[in-house]
């Protein structure tokens, strides 16, 4: 008998094993939901699959009676816009500061302790400040996401720059490169795939800050909606929304992965 650490499932079995937990959760949910609904047809806690479909259909396929908007899609686009802007700003700031911090010892000595300190401030603790300074509009939500993930990206990029082999930097200098040319031709292209990696890791945190900001002050958005309908115990809306957010998060992560593999084949081939 081979040791268990040396035994591998084949492709089909891998897929089946991977799907199993999902199926089990689904079955358990349906059984529990049926049991509760049998006792009390008006039970709200575990709505049936059909009532969730109806609720989503109402929000996604029919215009709202009050505003004429398709709320599900309005929420989705508002949230994704905020998320995209927050992550985009964080990516740009993180890339720029990460690279100069990593490449220039004088800047690093100057900024690194400060950035480390900033990264330890809990972003949600400054949310009230953001609302006071930037108002309750879009800006404060975008800023929260940016503030939340930028320090991590800067520090990650800085580490990545400093981990590039010293031999490469010396080689570039012997080829006549200035500091600027080393940054744009040697450092930047090599940390771009690592930036995508850092963004993928920050997606979870970005969603957390987005939903937190929307829950507190907003008039639309996926986070706003689930916190709004919570008052009516509308699990038939909350559950599909949570699944939808999870899917969006998964899909964004997948897109970034594909993008990175397409743009930087040399990076993924070496497995680094």
């Amino acid at each position, binding site marked *: 008998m081979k040791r268990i650490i040396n035994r591998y499932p084949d492709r089909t079995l891998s897929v089946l094993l991977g799907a199993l937990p999902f199926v089990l959760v689904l079955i358990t949910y349906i059984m529990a939901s049926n049991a509760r609904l049998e006792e009390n047809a008006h039970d709200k806690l575990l709505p049936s699959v059909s009532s969730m479909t109806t609720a989503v259909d109402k929000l996604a396929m029919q215009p709202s009676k009050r505003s004429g908007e398709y709320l599900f899609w309005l929420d989705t686009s508002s949230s994704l816009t905020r998320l995209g802007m927050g992550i985009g700003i964080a990516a740009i700031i993180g890339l720029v500061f990460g690279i100069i911090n990593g490449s220039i010892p004088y800047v690093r000595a100057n900024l690194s302790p400060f950035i480390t300190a900033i990264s330890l401030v809990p972003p949600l603790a400054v949310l009230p400040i953001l609302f006071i300074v930037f108002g309750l509009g879009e800006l404060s939500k975008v800023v929260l996401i940016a503030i939340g993930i930028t320090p991590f990206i800067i520090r990650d990029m800085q580490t990545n720059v400093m981990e590039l082999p010293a*031999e*490469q930097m010396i*080689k570039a200098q*012997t*080829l006549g490169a200035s500091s600027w040319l080393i940054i*744009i031709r040697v450092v930047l292209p*090599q940390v771009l795939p690592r930036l995508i990696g850092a963004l993928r890791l920050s997606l979870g945190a970005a969603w957390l800050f987005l939903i937190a900001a929307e829950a507190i002050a907003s008039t639309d958005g996926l986070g706003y909606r689930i916190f709004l309908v919570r008052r009516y115990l509308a699990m038939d809306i909350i559950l599909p929304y949570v699944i939808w957010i999870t899917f969006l998060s998964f899909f964004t992560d997948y897109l970034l992965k594909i993008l990175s593999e397409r743009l930087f*084949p*040399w990076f993924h*081939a070496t497995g680094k």
Partner: protein
Amino acid sequence: MAMIEANNLWKEYGDNVVLEQVNVKVEEGEFITVVGTSGCGKTTFLRMLLGIEQPTRGKLLLDGKTFPDEPGEDRGIVFQKYSVFPHLTVLKNTMLAAEFKQAPWLGKLFGAKHKQAENDAREILTSVGLENALHRYPHELSGGMQQRLAIAQALMKKPRILLLDEPFGALDPGIRADMHELIQNLWKKTGLTIFMITHDLAEGFYLGTRLWVFDKIRLDAQQANAYGACITYDIPVGKTDIEIFDDIDNSLDKSRKVLLD
């Protein structure tokens, strides 16, 4: 005047003496192979030639002036690994030197200048035998091909001095022989001054014009770093024989044992 001159050169890190009393002169066009036990300062000496380390005492001169204190385009380098840029193809790796020189802001060339740089790069790549791998990335090349690329990249800059830090240490013996031939031919053709560090004593006996052995004359088994190494043998290649080979081999063996125990 000698091109490179070391006058009573010392290198110390605190109590740790790496090099002591190095006195040597190098003329333009020499091809020097450097051997020595690990920890005997040969890499430190190369790093001083690169400009990334400075002597603690004594003088190291280039054309009679103090050595530059950072790497520059007159001194090319090939390391054992990480010498090439993984994100660029063979052709682009080689064109880099031209792009650095002619495009100080963008670092990229366009149109006729691009064409010119590409042609120069192709020519050099052909001379190192990489003409069929122009569009491959370094990870798609064998170890020997990567080192060929690193050499081509350095040659593109037409340096005065080429520094080779155990360039063939990680290669198979057969490929190593090919590389010896390549580097010997390039040296004859270009008249570069070459310093090559190797851990293979035999390599130093038939490559180049001059062999240096870095070794510690004074050895203290209790405190290996109390004394530094200097150049114990400085012999012209071609005037060597098996006796000298055995002599050097024995003395290196002796210090290796003392240093490692």
